[in-house]
């Protein structure tokens, strides 16, 4: 599971007011090389929750992303590369996503998160 995906996922457990962002429990991180696409990165930048991305990438062991960001940074090639790496190349293979309010764990196996809710959580 890439951090691009993580940035879109939230916990919809009944009664939870803010299920985003999910915390990450890391068991296995894999780095996969992905082709650099500047247009895509520019497009995504506006839609990404930056703070969530930074926190998630740090949990995954990548500390290069700046705490804050603004659109002008997209002109820097170095920034784009770091953004690209964090967003697309870090994969959580094994671990869990954790609901920030209830602590409920959603397992991630072989890179696939299982977001199914139990009967009483719906």
């Amino acid at each position, binding site marked *: *599971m890439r951090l691009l995906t993580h940035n879109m996922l*939230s916990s*919809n457990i009944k009664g939870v007011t803010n299920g*985003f962002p999910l915390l990450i429990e890391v068991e296995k991180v894999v780095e996969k090389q*992905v082709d650099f696409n500047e247009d895509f990165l520019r497009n995504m930048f506006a839609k990404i929750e930056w703070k969530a991305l930074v926190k998630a990438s740090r949990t995954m062991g990548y500390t290069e992303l700046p705490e804050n960001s603004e659109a002008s940074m997209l002109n820097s090639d170095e920034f784009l590369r770091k953004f690209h790496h964090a967003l697309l190349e870090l994969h959580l293979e094994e671990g869990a996503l954790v609901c920030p309010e209830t602590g409920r764990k959603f397992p991630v196996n072989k*890179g696939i*998160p299982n977001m*199914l809710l*139990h009967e009483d959580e719906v």
Partner: protein
Amino acid sequence: MVGSCIGVSSTCSYGTTLLWGPGLHTFISRGHVIGRSAPIQVLNRTDIKDIRIGKRIYFTAVSGGGRRMQTALNVTAVETLQKGIAEFYDESSGIWENIWGDHMHHGFYEPDSSVSLSDHRSAQIRMIEEALRFASISDDPMQKPRQIVDVGCGIGGSSRYLARKYEARCKGITLSPVQAQRAQALAAAQGLGDKVSFQVADALNQPFEDGQFNLVWSMESGEHMPDKTKFVNELARVAAPGGTIIIVTWCHRDLSPSEESLSPEEKKLLNKICDAFFLPAWCSTADYVKLLESLSLQDIKAADWSENVAPFWPAVIKSALTWQGITSLLRSGWKTIKGALAMPLMIRGYKKGLIKFAIITCKKPVP
């Protein structure tokens, strides 16, 4: 977790890994039951007589003394359905893929054409293209979809096709872990590992934040949704402003103004099909349109494509009757076989005008 069951001959309480709550599928493998009188061991799934949605599960348990007893259990409806769906597809995905390829949906044919099995894959592609055309999805680089969600994605056939066609990112959700795994593996093998991703998730509770997707795609998954209102609500919620929703699904015929419901005969036929394919109650195309209207979605269009899919089921049956088909079926589980045996029911339903293959599309307004 501990629960209780009403037995034919005794009451017993159950130990862990059995029966209750989300672990339903685990009772199907060996489990250990602590009885009131003696330890009871639940046998494996082949002893399960009948799984009915919302009703009782009957199974045989063997007491410590070797006595077999029939005992029964109430199970909650939705959980059974979800587990049933997941297991049905866990079980049958492989055989389907072997014979039909990675698209788990009907092919689109010229009405009254007779088709050979070799035409089916291109017909399945055509189905996707016709659906996109019906919904007026643009190829234009500035207007084509960039983020797509495939709701009920199977092994990701649509996801990969759409991601490739529009050079877009696609997320697929399915109840079946086996399918999600297979979908991801196929994506990686086709060099789309970074464009498409799959999650095990519930279409009635999509794990996404609001407004994420320019294209919300539901290709023949709507029929599995027990709560159509929730299903459509979620499709609308995750659609981005200006985005398009495409639903291709089986419905029953629209009711005439004087009718309150389908005839008892019609209901009976649908129930048999529901049973075999793990489908909850059906609704009509008009019901979907009403739901979309109630959510203030725009440009709502619907069409009946029943004649364009009619050649499909005879082709599926023909493939099942080939040597490859039969041996695959025999190697798969009971659920798949039961599904296969129910295919003539689908044909009967189409012929009677009871079952419709429908497409419904709409746009989410820009605020």
